[in-house]
């Protein structure tokens, strides 16, 4: 799990599955330190670049959000295949988070309720371009092997910074008192 990392610019891919982008926002909350970080890492597929698929030699894959549909499954597998180390960032990635509130409900009932139009019946959109929903929202580790879990909703910018700098320096990441939060 803690294999030493090579001494070159590390390739980092990030994505949001069934999340709210709050974890990515918290990543940007490292503020000015992002200008130091880009000296050490190169961003591959990520919402802030236009690289649409992971390069096969990514070092870190950082994933926000749980798995709620077929496309999420596909992206998660792409990340596992192309990234040496996978990090589940935030409550949604670790345990499904708030979107997993729907797990106790029947997905058909939810769709029928959301797409009911007063006086015009229910029109659940249907198109092959839209990925199939899973019955439940799943945490990442149920689908692929995850190497690190970074808790919080979201983890703070400081927690993300400490985690990354530990990892980049070849240390086992530890979040001491004050950085571990679950809210």
């Amino acid at each position, binding site marked *: 799990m803690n294999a030493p990392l090579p001494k070159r610019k590390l390739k980092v891919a990030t994505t949001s599955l069934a999340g709210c982008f709050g974890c990515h*926002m918290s990543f940007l*909350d490292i503020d000015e330190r992002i200008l130091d970080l880009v000296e050490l890492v190169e961003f591959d597929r990520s919402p802030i670049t236009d690289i649409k698929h992971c390069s096969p030699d990514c070092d870190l894959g950082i994933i926000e959000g749980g798995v709620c*549909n077929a496309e999420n499954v596909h992206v998660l597998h792409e990340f596992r295949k192309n990234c040496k180390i996978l990090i589940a960032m935030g409550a949604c990635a670790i345990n499904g988070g708030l979107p997993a509130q*729907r797990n106790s409900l029947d997905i058909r009932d939810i769709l029928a309720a959301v797409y009911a*139009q007063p006086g015009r019946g229910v029109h659940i959109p249907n198109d092959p371009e839209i990925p199939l929903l899973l019955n439940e929202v799943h945490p990442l580790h149920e689908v692929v092997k995850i190497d690190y879990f970074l808790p919080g909703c979201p983890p703070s910018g400081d927690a993300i910074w400490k985690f990354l700098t530990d990892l980049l320096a070849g240390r086992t990441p530890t979040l001491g008192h004050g950085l571990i939060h679950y809210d």
Partner: protein
Amino acid sequence: MRHQFELETAKTPEALKRIVIEPVSRVEGHGKVTILLDDNNQVHQVRLHIVEFRGFEKFIEGRPYWEVPVLVQRLCGICPVSHHLAASKAMDMIVNGGILTPTAEKIRRLMHYGQMLQSHALHFFHLSSPDLLFGFDSDVAKRNIVGVAAANPDVAKMGVLLRKFGQEVIRVTSGKRVHGTGSVPGGVNKSLTAEERDYLLKDSDQMIAWSRDAVRIIKGLHRSNPALYDAFGAVPSTMMSLVDDKGALDFYHGALRARDKDGEVIFDQVSYQGYNTLLTEGVKSWSYMKFPYITTLGEEKGWYKVGPLARIQNCDSIPTPQAEEERVEFVAHGGAKPMHGSLGFHWARMIEMLCAAETIKDLLLDPDIMGADLMAEGPRRGEGIGVIEAPRGTLFHHYRVDDNDLVTYANLIVSTTNNNTAMNVAVRDVAKNYLQGHEITEGLLNHIEVAIRCFDPCLSCATHALGKMPLEVTLVDATGAEIDRMTKDSEGRIGK
């Protein structure tokens, strides 16, 4: 006259080539675009699909009402404060008929203007500036904030620090930068200490100066290439936003105003309490984001734009002096007519960022933000509607609560949903003008995304559902054991 919904639906989709942009990048959330072309690269169909469904409206039912302002923030990590406050405003109606103490209202305003500043800075500097500074078809490897930092370190740093300041305003007012808990039904749970005020105040002049610089950057780009900037993705349409009782720009509270594409007022000072008769939420088979329209104008003609470009042209004035000066210049640039070129969103957005920076300073200087009277009391009701001008536009939250304090109904129309038709029309316009008849390159395809980015869509807030193709998804865990399976037959029936 061009039919509004041209390029929405191809007559013979089977015979056409399909190009997909997936995921749409440098926007918040998940979306994809499909383009159908014939053998001569004539464009026949362009659609922006939203690939997100989380069912918030349904699972909010049954929760106690006081959880809702914190819960709904998880719709969106980019503008969580907007959801936090729109839900709080709706819940204010339920707990006390919608009254706030001056301290509570000003703390909430401070939080909201902090978010406006951070979200607009993020959007402009981190997400869109690479297109604007390097060109729409520049090198993919450089077309990101890291490339901007390498080529224009001062610009990148300014963006990072503007966003940081906005996030700090949010942290100080709500306890946390993302998903704070400052606002509660009926008021707020904290005000500012003198130290907190001074901490923010010391940087506020710098933020105003940088925001003005940002307006100058985008204004300069506009003026240096009006042929591109004024015409790109031009979508003449109705514009809708909140204005205050004098018709001035207000991001926190007001009544609804709409103007038609030529700037004529369609309605004004309409209470948002009637949003659900004013607007109808249309559904289309190929997108899971709804398509709202102004009910009286009908589905074909009733769609509209919300957000910075609509707000700046809808209001009669901006209450802060420097932003007002910039608004006057902006309006003058359009001559006698409203501007509808999509890139105008960026210019309008930076004027709003300046307004936010100025307003934050004004609020920090107001002694009410250190007041002790945080909650107001009033009669309890069963239903509440809250509206706010979120960074991306008008945002509606509507709830009903039963006698046991549990939510029985929730309906949300998020800002990006209001812009759904406008975004689709803009990408079709760009596809027609730039892709038509050409060999499609990555750079040309990025033009589509540039148009989408103008609207700064937060696709994270949008929803999706299921198609009609027979499908089966099996989810297996790391050891190969099946943990979930969904099937759908050709009739669209879903099974396990």
